[in-house]
Structure formats: structure tokens, C-alpha cells
């Protein structure tokens, strides 16, 4: 009997923390449905969701967040995998590069925002270089790369931070495949490029998917970079929700929570998609082994 309880005792603190998280989620969902007894709001309805969705500003925010998350993930994964593959192939000075790759992982997002500003803003270093090369004559001629509606500054910041994360995350996995299966394929006559694309890359997919999933959900829901590098309109969803949340009139809170509810839903859909792909992938690998 006692033995059966051991894992639960070990997991007690984890369970306690998870309960706090679930409480936060449940509270967000309930308040988003208009249930705030403290304010005399006792009716549960989808009114706030309906109102939020009929607001064009919200749709713009949602689309912006989805777009930022998708584009930064695609670029980070592609660049990260490229860096990872190059790192495995170039054995020379490998230690130096490994250490350099760690820097973005250690760098807080707040610092990344500053990097983007000092390089890409209208008074940034790129603009100065353009002036010295006579490409532009005035500060205003330099395109507004960061504070624009396309969120390019935010995306650049995410790529700088997450591409090395992908490389680092996938590295040990890909390395072990590279030394075993890829070498075998090359010995059997496959070209190095072919063996990379048809052996190493597919077999590394579980690790790549894992990294992609983490950064996709993170860049969808994170607050710092969109706040520091975003424009006033449209705002990324987390920024918009917090503005609504900190509104002095507490009756605005259900709107904030409805927006958070949408974010929870999108994040869960992303997670479900990941598990679906992951299972399909690992099933596929298992099947090819069984053959």
C-alpha cells in the first residue's frame, strides 16, 4: 500500500504547481465566459467571445500573433537545422562554434529587443552604413523595419534567439544519426547530400518537431518582444490582452480573459497538432524498422 503511494508522494510538489496552473487557466476561462461573482456578473455566456471576435482590432491582433509565430518558427527551424548540419560536418573549431551558439540561448528576450533596435531602427547601425555609402541622405529615408505592421523586428529577434536553440536542441540527436546511419548510407554509395536529406533529416524529425513546437507556442504567446518592438496597431495578442487586463474598469476584465481564452485554445490546438505529427512520425519510424 505504502509502496503504491511512493510515486504520488514524489510527485506531490509537481501536482501542487500544476493545480495552481490549472486554477489560473480555469479562472481565465470562467472570467472570459463572463463569470465574475465579485462584480455581480453571474451569467455564463459566450457574449464576450462574440464581442471580441466581432472587433476588427482583435482579428488583426490574432492574425499578427499567428503570423509572427509561424514565420519565426519556419525560419528558425530552417536556419537552425542548417547550422546544426554544418556544425556536425565542420569538425574544425567546433568547440568555439558550440560556445557561440550558446550565447543566444543565454540571452534574455529583453536584450534581444535592444539588439534589434541598435541594428535595424532608423538610427541604427544599418541606417548609418547606408548613409555613409550614400544610399540614403536623411534618417527618414531609411525604411522603418522594426516598428511596422509586419512585425519584422519581432521576427528578426525571434530568429536570432531561436535558430541557435533549434541547432543546439537537435545537435546531439542528429550527431548520433550522422555517425551511424548517414555514414552507412554513404558507404553504400549515396552522395553526402542525398544521404543527409533522405536519412539524417527524416530520422532527426522527432527532435526537430519538438524544437519547432516549443518555439511556435512560445513566439505565439510571449509578451516581451511584441511589446518592445511592436507598433501601436495592431498589437500582438498577449500585449492587447494585458492592456485590456490592466484597464482601471474591472468590467473590462472578461474581454482580456476571452482574448486569453482564444490564446489558450490556439496553443492547445498547436499542441494537439504536435502530438499528432509526433505520433505519426514515430509510428512511421517504427514501421520502417519493423520492415
Amino acid at each position, binding site marked *: 500500500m505504502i509502496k503504491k503511494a*511512493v*510515486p*504520488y508522494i*514524489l*510527485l506531490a*510538489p*509537481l501536482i501542487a*504547481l*500544476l493545480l495552481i*496552473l490549472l*486554477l*489560473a*487557466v*480555469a*479562472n*481565465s476561462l470562467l472570467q472570459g465566459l463572463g463569470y465574475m461573482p465579485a462584480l455581480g456578473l453571474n451569467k455564463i455566456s459566450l457574449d464576450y467571445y462574440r464581442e471580441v471576435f466581432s472587433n476588427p482590432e482583435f482579428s488583426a491582433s490574432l492574425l499578427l500573433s499567428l503570423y509572427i509565430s509561424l514565420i519565426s518558427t519556419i525560419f528558425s527551424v530552417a536556419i537552425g537545422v*542548417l*547550422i546544426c548540419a*554544418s556544425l556536425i560536418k*565542420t569538425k574544425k573549431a567546433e568547440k*568555439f562554434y558550440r560556445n*557561440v*551558439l*550558446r*550565447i*543566444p*540561448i*543565454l*540571452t*534574455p528576450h*529583453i*536584450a534581444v529587443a*535592444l*539588439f534589434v533596435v*541598435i*541594428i535595424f531602427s532608423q*538610427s541604427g*547601425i544599418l*541606417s*548609418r*552604413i547606408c548613409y*555613409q555609402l550614400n544610399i540614403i541622405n536623411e534618417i527618414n529615408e531609411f525604411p522603418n523595419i522594426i516598428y511596422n505592421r509586419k512585425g519584422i523586428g519581432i521576427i528578426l529577434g525571434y530568429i*536570432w534567439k531561436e535558430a*541557435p536553440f533549434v541547432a543546439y536542441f537537435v545537435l546531439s540527436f542528429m550527431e548520433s544519426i550522422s555517425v551511424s546511419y548517414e555514414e552507412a548510407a554513404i558507404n553504400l554509395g549515396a552522395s*553526402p547530400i542525398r544521404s543527409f536529406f533522405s536519412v539524417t533529416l527524416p530520422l532527426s524529425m522527432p527532435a526537430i518537431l519538438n524544437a519547432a513546437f516549443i518555439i511556435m*507556442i*512560445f513566439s505565439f*504567446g*510571449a*509578451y516581451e518582444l511584441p511589446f*518592445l518592438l511592436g507598433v501601436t496597431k495592431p498589437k500582438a495578442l498577449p500585449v492587447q490582452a*494585458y492592456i485590456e*487586463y490592466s484597464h482601471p474598469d474591472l468590467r473590462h476584465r472578461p474581454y*482580456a480573459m476571452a482574448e*486569453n481564452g482564444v*490564446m*489558450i485554445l490556439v*496553443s*492547445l490546438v*498547436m499542441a494537439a497538432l504536435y502530438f499528432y505529427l509526433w505520433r505519426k512520425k514515430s509510428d512511421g519510424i517504427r514501421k520502417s524498422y519493423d520492415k
Partner: protein
Amino acid sequence: MTNKNSILRLIMVFAAACILIPVALMTVWAFTSRWQWPDLIGESLSLRGFREVFINNVQGFRILVSSIFISMAAAFFATVIGYMSAQAFSMYDFPLKKWLRFGSMLPIIIPSSIFAMGIHVYFIKWGINDSITGVLAGHVLYCMPYTVNILGDSREALGNKYEQQAAMLGCSSLKAFFSITLPLMLPSVISAFSMAYIISFSQYFITMLLGGGVVKTYAVLVFPLISAGDRTIAGAYTLVFLLSSIFIFMLFEGAIKFIVKKIVGTET
């Protein structure tokens, strides 16, 4: 073949440049007094930014130190909880295992801002808003997925054959833990700890909302300076931020190397 390798090497050089140039530029900014557009080089060297961080702002240095302590504490709790969970997941079978394992990943799925806004009311009700307890709870929750993962993997890899052997030779399980399992797990424990430290140290939203301006960390202090316009000061604060993370990370890294060497040394 050599041609292809040189392309790959070029990619690495380019990637390293992309990573290092922003850091270098920020460092230059931090040491520059004035640097007007369109000059490519700042007017003169100055320590104005660092005077601001360490001398003029009375709070600056104090917040940095207390921030390091808060993150150390968060990393400690996250690592202990991570270890306990890893032990449960890798050594036992129980009905809710799959669900709890999924649950340990939930903080990756639910954005931290949503957690903070959702729990804020309850923390006020429980009297732990604007307190270190509340901030720590949030930090530990968001470090936990990583510690559970790192420690779970290596706990599973280690297995319990050494412990069984020790038990067969008459060793108590407590002693086996402290003289066999823990030393062998120590490298992963330290890397879980340093990962958690980094996550906690760069956490902004949770600290801002649940700390309510009373519990200040370095991230909260630096945040408004980024868009304030004075890049010398922003650069100096951020450089100190980055260097302190790197310094502490290297400290952990050194500890791992030392321990691995020592364990290998005692085995042979």
C-alpha cells in the same frame, strides 16, 4: 568534397558573425558617451552607463544581487521538484503517469502571461501577491518542464541497477542515494539547475505582474530602459544582465566538468 565543406564552414562563420555582432555593438554602445546619427563611430569613450548602473542608481546593484538570489532559489526548487518527478516517472508505474507527464509539459503550452493574469486574483486572496513567495511559485512552475525533462532523461538512462547492487551488498537506500545515485546524476542535476536559473533570470511578465513592483528583478528594472531612448544606459544595463548570466552559466559548466573528472577519477 572540400568545396562542400568550405561552404558549410562559411555558413558557420556567417552564423557566428550574426550572433556576435549585435553583442559587440551593444558593448560599444555601453561604453560610448554620445553616438549621433550618422556617425559610424561614437564620439568618445565613457563610463557614464556603468556609473548609472552601479553608482547613481542606488537600487541597480542591489536588485542585480537580489535577482541572482531569487533565480538561484527558483532554480533550486525547480531542480528538486524536477528530480523527485523524474524519479517517480522513471522508476515507478502508476495509473496517472501518462497524464502527469503531459501535465509537466503544460507550462510550455500555456503562455506565462496567461498564467500570471489568471492566478493574480487568487494570489491576492491568499496574500502572496507582491511577495517573493508568489513570484517564486510562478518562476518554479515555468522552469519545471525543463528540469523534469533533463533529469527524467538521465534518470531513465541511469536505471536502478547500481542501487540494486548496493542494496544486495547491504547498503541502506538512503546511503545508496547519497553515495551512488546522486553523484552519478550530479552533472544532469547541475545542467537542469543552470537551465532553470537562466529561465528564471530572464523572466519578465510573471515578476512584473505577480511581484507588483515590490519584488523587483533585474529583468523588470531593464525592461523600460530598452525603449527609453538612451542607448548608452540601456546598453550598460543589458551588458551587465548578459554578462552575469554568462558568468553564472560558466560557473555551473566548470562545476560539471570538475565533477565528471572527479567521478571518472575515483572509478579508475
